[in-house]
């Protein structure tokens, strides 16, 4: 009962902040609303008894990626004044393609059979011990390959960042 109320509060917060990301005029407000949205989604993870995922989500997205976003927006100092006008044609195109994508999402959700396998509060998979066991025993190879991918991405980022490397 209690978690049901929490679910609605968090969902409203998530949807509201996600909408505000698009609506806000100032880029910096958009970034902050996006951060708020990530927090709301982390709340959903906790409701699904996936505490580890929730905390890592906050550390990685809110703590690192969004800080860098904020950093960039602050340094570029994007304001309403130097916000360039978009041509009308592009606006129409954006609305139409957005609507088509919305239809697609609805179609996918309708055809997908939403089956609740078990009560999320009773699953233990989100706890760090079980997650670690699954990752390092059953899915060791994909896990290692993913980490190599991350390493490659890091090296690539350093290469792009360093201009005088050649």
């Amino acid at each position, binding site marked *: 009962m209690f978690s049901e109320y929490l679910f609605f509060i968090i969902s409203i917060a998530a949807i509201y902040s996600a909408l505000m990301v698009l609506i806000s005029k100032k880029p910096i407000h958009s970034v902050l609303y996006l951060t708020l949205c990530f927090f709301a989604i982390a709340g959903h993870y906790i409701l699904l008894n996936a505490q580890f995922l929730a*905390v890592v989500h906050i550390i990685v997205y*809110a*703590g*690192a990626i969004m800080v860098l976003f904020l950093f960039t927006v602050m340094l570029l100092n994007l304001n309403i004044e130097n916000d360039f006008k978009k041509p009308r044609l592009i606006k129409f195109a954006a609305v139409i393609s957005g609507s088509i994508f919305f239809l697609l999402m609805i179609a996918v959700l309708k055809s997908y059979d939403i089956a609740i396998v078990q009560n999320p509060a009773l699953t233990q998979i989100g*706890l760090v011990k079980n997650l670690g066991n699954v990752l390092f025993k059953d899915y060791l190879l994909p896990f290692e390959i993913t980490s190599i991918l991350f390493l490659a991405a890091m090296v690539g980022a350093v290469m792009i960042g360093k201009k005088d490397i050649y």
Partner: protein
Amino acid sequence: MSIFFILYKLILASVILLVSLVIAMYSTLIERKVAGFFQDRLGPNRAGVYGILQPLADGLKLFFKEEFMPNTADKFLYILGPSLTMMVALLTSAVIPWGDSLVIGGTDYSLQIADINIGILYVFAIISVGVYGIMIGGWASNNKYALMGAVRAASQMISYELAMGMSIIALVMMSGTLSLNEIVQQQHGFHWKVFYQPFAFVIFIICAFAECNRSPFDLPECETELIGGYHTEYSSMKLGFYLFAEYINMFISSAMISALFFGGYNFPFMDDLGLSHNALTIIGTLVFFVKITFFGFVFMWIRWTLPRFRYDQLMRLGWKALLPLAILNVIITGIVMMIQNHV
């Protein structure tokens, strides 16, 4: 979940909140006294005996000062900045085990607000969010010095978070748990983690200084270059919140250092005293606060001893010295653990 349980947690949370605030308040006085001692002068001694009323006077002064807001500031974010900093500073105390449990009428009352099984990660999440208050405040002031301070704070905190996390991974590998309470329990008696992971401790304490924006890493508010850094444009109690949050962060960091590396509420020969469980818990909590006070003193000691780093030195230390050392520590810990398991 009974009403009684909720009430007990609520009381515990309020007590810890109050204690954090009072300790932060008196840290300002102790800091000035310590500074006076290091510089061979007396420090504040006018208000009350030994200046004991000085924090109250300072607080009142901050409350009654004129509230000033720059014309070009983003009003909402300008207020949000200090509030967020204060809130985040207070959040961490929820997972720190302030003591063992008290047994009253056959029921166990833990002296920890929330014993979640990912305690350490929770602390890291809070630390990583801590930079928002400073960044938002610095940007919303619409002042180039404040912005510079905010940018410095952000890059500094992200850089040192990595080394801090890596140093803790070695500790977590040894203890096999992420719950702070279990880590403290494993250090029962004199099995303090600092003897097994001295390297991790050194890296952790350096990073803790950087995360608290304390000297020698106080570049975000470096007054010789940036006037006041991110809080240049702040006055009255909003400035007070920023300064106050720094002392709360200091208190919480000291508590984390003592809990992770110096046994928390454990002390040597605790089993030989022949005391009851409750008495041991109370003494343990007192011992914990003595340890916290000591590390608080270390924070001040270093502030009034060492000069400030230059910014490029700071970055080099974080990325090229501390991070590789912390990773090396993780690797060595892994190898030693593997050898121990196979012999």
